[in-house]
Every structure is written in C-alpha cells, then in structure tokens.
C-alpha cells in the first residue's frame, strides 16, 4: 500500500535535518555498547576461568555419570523395610515438616517489626536504618546448617535445635525481604491517610499494611516449602527430623531405603507446594483485569 509508506518517505526526506537536530540520538552509542559487551563478556570469562580453576573436565563428569547410574540401579525398587520402620520414617517426616513450619512462623513473626524498622520509608533515622540492615545481614550471613550446629550445642540434639536454626537464619532473610517490599509500596495511599488526619501508625496500618501483607504472606509460604527441604539437611547434623535417617541409610548403603525416603520427602514438598500455591492465589487474589 502506498499510503503508509508516505510516513517512511517523509522521514527519509527529512533525514539530514533530523540528523542535524537530534545528533545525540543518531550518534552510535559506542561507549554504551562497549559497556554492555563488557557486562556480558566479563562474567562469561570469569565462568570459564572458574571452571578451569576447579579442574572441571567433561571426562571426569562423564566417568562420574556412570557411577550415578550404578546408584540409580541400586535404588530400585524403593523399599522401607518393616512396617515398624515405615512408622518411624513417617513420624520423622512429620517432625521435619513441623520443624520447617515452626521455624518459618517464628522467624516471620519476629521479622515483621524488624522489616518496618529496616525500611527507609518508614523509619527516617539513617542510623537506625543502617544498624538494622547490618544486623539482618549478619544473621543472614550465617547459613541454616551453621545455626543448627550452634543451637545443638546450646539446647542439645533434637527438633528444638532445628526450629531455632531455621528461625535464626530466616529472621535475616525475612527482615530484608519485608523491608524491601515495604519500600516498594505506592506512597499515595499513605498520603491519603495522613491528609485525612491520621498519624504515623495509621499510615502504616492503612496506607502500607494492605499493600505489603499479601506480598509478605506469599514470601512466608514460599519459605515454608523451601525450609521443608532445608530441614532435611539439618536433620543430618542431628537437629531432628528425617534427615538423620536419610544420612544413616546412605552410610549403611541401604540404597532402596534411601530412594524411598527421598520419594516421601519429594511427596511432602510437592504437597506443601500445591497447598501454598492454592493459599497464595487466594490471598494475593488472581483477579483478571476486566477487558
């Protein structure tokens, strides 16, 4: 069609004058291209250097894959042994889920006020902001597994140490996530509350909380699922749950039991995932925008 190309022809005719008037827009952004290339090329180079440094070789990987196949073959069919053992395993699995649930919930409750204190938009004090951020960084810097080893020495072996371990590391994560969610909120709603004569707490309660609560809840739900997996690991060091049995069966080369344990852990995690997804969409609200 010839009509639309009128736009193109017009622009082509004006190209010299446009180039003159908007030189900056036509200038080849060499500097930016270079920066982009470096931003992509740098990490790629680093990746290859790292692979060379840790002596990663395809041959070794290929050889190891054969071993993996041998283990896999030994794992079928999954077997739990006697019914008594099954009962013990299921009990341990329930314990693992309980550790994750209690640890996540306590962490969320404790991190809730911390999140507000660490949010720049709520507490204007720079010192308070800086100190609370660094505090959260510090406890987050220590991994759940390390916390488990510490708490085992404080309260002894068992699930209580596991709960404390998950709680400790997640206070840091939740504090950071919550404060960032709070900082990302729209400020207009709070302005409306203040303009109507509301105080600082009113602003937080009505201008902020309705916006961040769904985000926080969905983060907590995700962490519950993720912590169920973590709780397996900390069980290995003696902080309760199914991890202990898993480590034991690996040590004694009972591969069929190992595969059974892995399967029930997978089932539990999948179940939690399904439930939390359903809950999350209820809370966050999956409303479809009207056409």
């Amino acid at each position, binding site marked *: 069609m010839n009509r639309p190309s009128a736009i193109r022809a017009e622009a*082509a005719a004006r190209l010299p004058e446009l*180039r003159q008037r908007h030189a900056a827009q036509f200038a080849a952004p060499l500097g930016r291209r270079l920066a982009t290339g470096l931003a992509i090329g740098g990490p790629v180079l680093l990746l290859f250097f790292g692979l060379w440094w840790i002596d990663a070789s395809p041959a070794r990987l290929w050889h190891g894959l054969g071993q993996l196949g041998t283990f896999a073959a030994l794992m079928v069919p999954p077997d739990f042994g006697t019914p008594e053992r099954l009962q013990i395993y299921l009990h341990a699995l329930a314990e693992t889920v309980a550790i994750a649930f209690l640890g996540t919930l306590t962490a969320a409750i404790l991190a809730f006020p911390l999140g507000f204190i660490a949010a720049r938009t709520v507490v204007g004090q720079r010192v308070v902001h800086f100190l609370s951020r660094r505090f959260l960084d510090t406890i987050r810097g220590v991994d759940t597994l390390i916390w488990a080893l510490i708490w085992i020495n404080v309260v002894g072996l068992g699930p209580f140490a596991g709960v404390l371990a998950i709680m400790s590391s997640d206070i840091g994560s939740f504090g950071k996530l919550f404060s960032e969610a709070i900082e990302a909120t729209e400020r207009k709603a709070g302005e409306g509350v203040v303009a109507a004569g509301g105080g600082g707490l009113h602003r937080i309660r009505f201008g902020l909380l309705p916006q961040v609560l769904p985000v926080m809840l969905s983060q907590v739900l995700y962490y519950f699922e993720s912590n169920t997996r973590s709780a397996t690991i900390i069980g290995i060091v003696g902080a309760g749950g199914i991890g202990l049995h898993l480590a034991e069966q690996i040590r004694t080369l009972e591969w069929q039991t190992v595969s059974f344990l892995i399967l029930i852990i997978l089932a539990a995690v999948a179940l939690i995932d399904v439930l939390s997804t359903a809950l999350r969409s209820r809370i966050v609200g999956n409303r479809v925008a009207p056409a």
Partner: protein
Amino acid sequence: MLELQGVGRRFGNHWAVNAASIKVPDGQFVGVIGRSGAGKSTLLRMINRLVDPSAGRILHDGREVSALRGAELRRWRQTCAMVFQQFNLVGRLDVLTNVLMGRLNHVPLHRGLLRLWSDEDKAIALSALEQFDIAAIAAQRADSLSGGQQQRVAIARALVQEPRILLADEPVASLDPRNTRVVMDAIQRINRHYGITVLVNLHSLDLARGYCDRLVGIAAGRVVFDDAPAALTPSVARELYGLEAAEVLDGEAGLEPDGLVPATA
C-alpha cells in the same frame, strides 16, 4: 475498507458486544460513542484482536482478519495501531525507544531485541515526535512525562507502525481539557495528513461531534445508531446514554424542554 459482520463477544453469560455490523471506508474518522460499559472498548479490542470475537467475522479489504494467527496476526496488528486510555508505554524506557516499539514488526527479530535501530527507523520515530512537538523530550524516561505528553508519545508509536487504521480507546479520558484538544488534534492530523482510518471511542459527545465524520452509537453491546454527527438528536442521545445524557451533552438547550434535569455533580 474495514467490515464487521455480526461480530459479538461473550464474557461468561454476558454479551459485551452483540451482532455488531458496520462498514468503514478507508480514511474515515469514526467516533464510537456510548455510556461506560456499553461495549466500546471490547469492540475496538476485537478489531486489533487483543480480544477474540465469539461470533461473526472481521474483514479488511476482503481478508478475514478475525481468523489470522501467528506472524499474519502480528502483521495485522501492525496495520491497525492501537492507542489506549492509560497510554500503555514502558515507563522505564526513554521516549524514543517507546516510539521505536512501533517499528518492531518492520525489523528482524534480533535487531529489535538488541535495539539495533537503523537510521531510517530513528528518522521515522523522530519525525513523528516532531510532528507532535515532543522531539525535545526524546531522551527522557516515559514515566517522567505528563499525561498529555505520554499520549502523544503513544500516538507517535502508533504512527511509526505505518498503520492503515488507528484504533483509539478513550484516548482523552485521563486528560485535562487543554491536553484533550492537543491529543485529539494529533489524531485528526494522522487522519487528514496520511489518510489513515480512525476509530475512536469517546465518552464526550461534544468531542465526537467536533472531530468525527461519522458516529456509531453502542448501547448494551448493540449498535443502535450509525450516521453523521448532525443526525444525532437529543432523543437519540438519551437512548444511548440514559441518565448520563445531561452530563455528556453539557446541558445543551435542546434537552431541558423535554423535562430532563441536568446533572449537578
């Protein structure tokens, strides 16, 4: 020629648009009027295929565009540009890049994704921006602009698509009176200068009368009026708008003798 043959769209049990049939010759400036929720937006969105019709056919120059898929559909969307009430720009990108979005269907995939625009594309975009007096802000981020500026950027984006048809869905509903005029003039310029067919949803009857060659009135999803603006009598307006009539007619003298109380809110 754009032709709608018995086009309808159902949401659940509700027909948002029902058996709409209109023919729009090339180069016409058509206003689609009706109260909020009458189905104006759905009608326009079906033409661009953002919403698929549940019934009927949409033809352009004899080609059934309501059956297109994939690359053909994307080509059709490039042919019938869309302008939205809320502008739908990418706020974090600069104005020029936003306008160049309109060129995406004209350039190879990798060039578009890597933002490797040719000088010709840049010239087309800048030329469009200059036509609407906003070339000076080409480097600014779109979310830093006023509503009137954003809508002009959106119209520039639509123009560089080199469209045959421009669909504008309530383009001035979020703007103040001065910007309303600026934006409507920009749309009129596209129509007059390039002969691009325009279909524009408007809430205000005054605007519709002032700019359009032809008005299509929609009430409860059905086309109830299709004629020149002069034929739109107060009684037709009342049928179209119901109680809102006084508001959209801005208390015109013709209404009060019929006993209609002008809205005071």
